[in-house]
């Protein structure tokens, strides 16, 4: 074999190894979670309560916790991000827009654990005092912090897709007597919907995949939350907590079910984004 072919093979090998790691994570989760998946507990696993004392290893509350926390954070972060991106891309004077953009990039550099740390000592007491109910460690607290964590992801993607709207459209609107807001409403937003959805989905993935914030400020109780002021546990936080359990126990095996679930949910999001881009690509955006 020639050197060139050898090197090509080596590169292919590297790509294969990287690709296989994705598969192997999945396979590992399945194999190790198999005992609990096959032990007839499958439906119980997804819908049952978590009560190892009674031999019940349902992760229902964690699923609910993950979903409520991440969607709530999206609910906070989306308007915030949309508003900020509109300011950056359309409304603000150049100086302000640039400064805001810098700030947003700076935010991407803040470590998650720092958010969690400040959250515990700053936000938790505020929430506790503000809403008399509960300890301050709650879905709301985690969602607020997560909202700040995921906003920069969304803003950067939104701004990028706003800026990709062809200039000729904007000039067309201006020449027809439209204002900045007309540009925004009639052209920029409709044209950048794939970008907006991408930003949303990526941010949701980020929120759902985050461990430290919910572990640190959501309180981690295993009950089904009744309100957003209740404490709750996410799938990721659950893994972080139960990892110290005996790893032959069913309790521990249930973690792989959590891992698998997280894996599948984020993969689905990826597929959504990819198909979106594919369709958008066909349409010429």
């Amino acid at each position, binding site marked *: 074999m020639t050197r*060139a072919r050898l090197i090509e093979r080596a*590169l*292919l*090998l*590297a*790509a294969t*190894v*990287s*690709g296989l*790691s*994705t598969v192997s*994570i999945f396979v*590992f*989760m399945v194999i*190790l979670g198999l005992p609990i998946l096959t032990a007839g507990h499958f439906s119980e696993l997804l819908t049952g309560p978590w009560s190892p004392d009674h031999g019940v290893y349902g992760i229902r509350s964690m699923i609910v916790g993950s979903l409520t926390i991440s969607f709530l954070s999206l609910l906070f972060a989306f*308007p*915030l991000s949309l*508003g*900020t991106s*509109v*300011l950056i891309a359309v*409304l*603000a004077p150049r100086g302000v827009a640039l400064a*805001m953009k810098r700030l947003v*990039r*700076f*935010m991407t*550099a*803040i*470590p*998650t*654990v*720092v*958010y969690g*740390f*400040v959250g*515990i*000592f*700053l936000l938790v007491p505020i929430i506790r005092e503000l809403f008399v109910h509960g300890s301050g460690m709650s879905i709301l607290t985690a969602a607020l912090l997560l909202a*700040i964590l995921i906003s920069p992801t969304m803003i*950067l993607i939104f701004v*990028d897709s706003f800026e990709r709207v062809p200039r000729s459209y904007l000039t067309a609107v201006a020449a027809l007597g439209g*204002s900045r*807001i007309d540009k925004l409403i009639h052209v920029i937003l409709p044209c950048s919907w794939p970008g907006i959805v991408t930003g949303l989905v990526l941010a949701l993935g980020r929120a*759902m995949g985050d*461990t*430290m914030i919910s572990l*640190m400020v959501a309180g981690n109780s295993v009950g089904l939350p009744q309100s957003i002021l209740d404490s709750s546990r996410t799938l*990721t936080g659950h*893994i*972080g907590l139960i*990892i110290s359990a005996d*790893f032959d126990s069913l309790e521990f095996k249930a973690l*792989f079910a959590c*891992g698998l679930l*997280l*894996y599948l949910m*984020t*993969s689905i999001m*990826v597929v959504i984004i990819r198909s979106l881009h594919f369709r958008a690509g066909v349409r010429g955006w």
Partner: protein
Amino acid sequence: MVMKRVKESIIVVLSWLCSLLLAGSVATIIGYLLFKGLATINLALIFGDTAPLEAIFLGRQVFNGLLPAMVGTLALVLLALIFAIPLGVAAGIYMAEYGKGRLKGWFSLFFDILASIPSIVVGLFGFSVAVFLHHNLSERIYPCLLIAALSLAFLVLPYIIRTTQVALESIPVTIRQTAPALGATKLQNISHVLLPHALSAMMSGIVLAMGRCAEDTAVIMLTGVVASAGMPRSIFAGFEALPFYIYYISAQYSDSRELASGYGAAIILLIICIMLFGLAFYIKARFELTFTARSGDKRRISQRIMKAPDRRKKSLKVNFQTEQSGQGTLL
């Protein structure tokens, strides 16, 4: 029309409010951190009771100081990158230059999925692999610096692959064809022209990956970080790391001095991460400059647009746009 003006003002006001809210909350977070922690930043925070020079040059143990955690983080980042860079760059080159058709599509899907897997799942994977190997391969394998670094490598691998791929793919055709037209083989083209050209863009991806490694807590929490280990000495042992230290302190500080050191550690970690991200953007900015200079600086290109006969204007303009948007996707 009046209604419309009112509506427009509302949108403007709302969007300013959103931005202010966001900026305000970040300012609050950083301000709080600095307010609480700035006073603790001193040599004792890092070196504890040990004299700094002795700690650095004589390898004296540091207790109650951040040095072991900082060095641990450093070792972790370096080790993770040693695994991730060759693999990621090679896979990225494959994707950009050799991959085609369906195989490339599958790889691309896999890398996207890998990029989206929550870090704690990667950590769980690393932990299970370590335990699995411990049982089936060697008693000596257990969660340690090596396992943590390997897991982190998986975490940042897709970043490196993607930036490499995009950096290579966004090299303009004119440059891409220069060397082949002079008789270069594909490999020569890659090694003499394409890689050097893409290097700075790849660097910024690598620096971002470094930031990710330095920051991540969830992975190492499951794969070998410990509360107290001293300076890292062997890759087969547990280690301390800054982000875990912060988490640990937030959960179980025993006195206000320890808590204060947590704020200090948070500030230090923040500074490290910001420096890494700053570096990435600096490299990227330089890259953009040289990039445009290489493909003929903007002025020349616009002159070309002006000089060219009518029909051509459009295509040249389009080319220029795509060149730019290629850079846009980078970060």
